[in-house]
């Protein structure tokens, strides 16, 4: 015991040493000689994309697991997947349809409103999920290796699955209010896919910010509510832009607000009285542009801080 302790103990004390790899400089050389790589370094972008793709099964399993775990303690179980959006729509109908009388200005108000609420909820929930993507899974981030983008992507996928349940409820409501299925319903698929990419990108950006500054998650609900009221969820954007004498920039901002674009595209797909002339010009191009811009931008922004997630 005492043989080794006097010789070895201060292997490398000097905590106040200089920044350079101080005492044995041959350690770095040793590592280089044998081709060791720095642990925990951020992978290159192509490598990162490859890693993410190879974890696709984990992403889908994680999303489905989260979704099924969500209501597993409730008596009604998975029925809440349907009930929650329906109750939401009922509340908005009570306030905006009955109490405030918005219904008088918009044809097919109930399908209009319910579509708006469901599609908006998808965007909002995806972004809210982003605030908890890292902070809510710190244990996972600190224990296992995987591209961290898997977390916001999985949570966004969970919201997409949730949306499919909502769409089921939506179709029942649509048919109940006389909107019968037509070929144009298929247009909802590209619209929702673009919206999903848009939301996932935004969610990744929010995830990075919230991982660094957890306070952001307190702020996001207020931003989202403001955004919702500006996005024509319960009122018609084209009507307001057409009727009022708004400054050009304000009208443009209202029309090309991504949330409003995706909502109106789905309304255009589902509701007969929501015709093409109620959409702003080049609406599909705008929907695609928003998806690419936010999807790629959010992913890049998230990847840039990859090695920092999970720090105390």
């Amino acid at each position, binding site marked *: 015991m005492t043989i080794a302790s006097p010789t070895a103990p201060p292997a490398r004390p000097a905590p106040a040493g200089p920044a350079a790899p101080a005492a044995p400089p041959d350690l770095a050389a*040793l590592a280089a000689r044998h081709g060791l790589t720095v642990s925990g370094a951020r992978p290159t972008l192509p490598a990162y994309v490859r890693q993410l793709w190879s974890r696709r099964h984990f992403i889908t399993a994680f999303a489905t697991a989260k979704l099924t775990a969500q209501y597993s303690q409730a008596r009604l179980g998975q029925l809440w997947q349907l009930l929650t959006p329906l109750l939401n729509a009922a509340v908005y109908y009570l306030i905006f349809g009955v109490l405030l009388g918005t219904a008088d200005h918009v044809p097919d108000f109930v399908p209009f409103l319910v579509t708006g609420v469901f599609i908006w909820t998808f965007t909002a929930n995806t972004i809210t999920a982003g605030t908890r993507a890292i902070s809510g899974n710190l244990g996972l981030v600190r224990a*296992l*290796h995987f591209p961290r983008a898997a977390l916001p992507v999985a949570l966004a996928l969970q919201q997409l699955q949730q949306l499919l349940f909502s769409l089921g409820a939506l179709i029942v409501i649509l048919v109940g209010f006389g909107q019968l299925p037509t070929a144009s319903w298929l247009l909802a698929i590209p619209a929702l896919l673009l919206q999903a990419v848009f939301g996932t990108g935004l969610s990744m950006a929010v995830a990075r910010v919230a991982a660094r500054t957890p306070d952001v998650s307190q702020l996001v609900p207020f931003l989202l509510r403001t955004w919702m009221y500006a996005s024509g969820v319960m009122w018609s954007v084209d009507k307001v832009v057409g009727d009022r004498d708004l400054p050009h920039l304000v009208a443009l901002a209202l029309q090309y607000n991504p949330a409003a674009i995706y909502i109106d595209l789905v309304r255009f797909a589902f509701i007969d009285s929501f015709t093409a002339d109620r959409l702003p010009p080049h609406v599909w191009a705008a929907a695609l542009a928003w998806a690419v811009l936010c999807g790629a931008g959010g992913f890049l922004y998230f990847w840039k801080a990859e090695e920092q997630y999970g720090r105390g």
Partner: protein
Amino acid sequence: MAENPTRPTGEPTPTVVVDGVHITYKVNGPRTGRGSATSALSRIVSRGAHPGLREVHAVKGVSFAAYRGEAIGLIGSNGSGKSTLLKAVAGLLPTAKGRVYTAGQPSLLGVNAALMSDLTGERNIILGGLAMGMTRDQIRGRYDDIVDFSGINEKGDFVSLPMRTYSSGMGARLRFSIAAAKSHDVLLIDEALSTGDARFRRRSRQRIEELRREAGTVFLVSHSNSTITESCDRALWLEAGVLRMDGPAKEVVAAYEEFTAAGNRSAAGNKGGAGTGTGKQPAR
């Protein structure tokens, strides 16, 4: 090969090289000052200097090289930075200064965080396996082994029940079984040997032994000195974030035991705590 651990020139292949590593935690949580809204506001306004942010210097300039075929034990009292160092080797914690070089991807043994108590054991096995980076085919191939090894089906069909219905021992056994299903180049084990009852401990020790043979290098953090001397040939002793000793497991453990005994005698009672006598566990 634990004879000359510092740097045998040339011959053995290093798998992990830790070069002058410092690790600091930034703690955002309970601050020293008052928690009133106005003081929080003033902290936000006067940002820059991070007045409320406390730094914990967990690892202070540790250097060593680990070679293929070695099993290295990490010892030291509670809060000495063992687990933190392990996480840095795994690349899960960034270093404040210095670098960690590795061959391949070191992995921590543990999937606890990936599992969800509301899901059945069955689905957790799949989820945990995927989280560790196994493919669905690999998991399917190992599924029965995992269930058998954990022994949770010995008292009825528990795999098809949610994990929250398990006893804590059953949960721990299933978690270990999932974690140990995959073999790794560099394996980092943080006190995984203390799960379950005596029978399961014996089985898990055998499994660790197998994993050790499959892996290139194994790091083991444990408060059980006997575990370290039994399963490791080299040991690192960390104390307050500083590497105090690096050498053959028996010598280092002996020196550490002398240190803790001395510490206990002087600080009679309050301090030593869990890091001391656990070596004499009735494991086997």
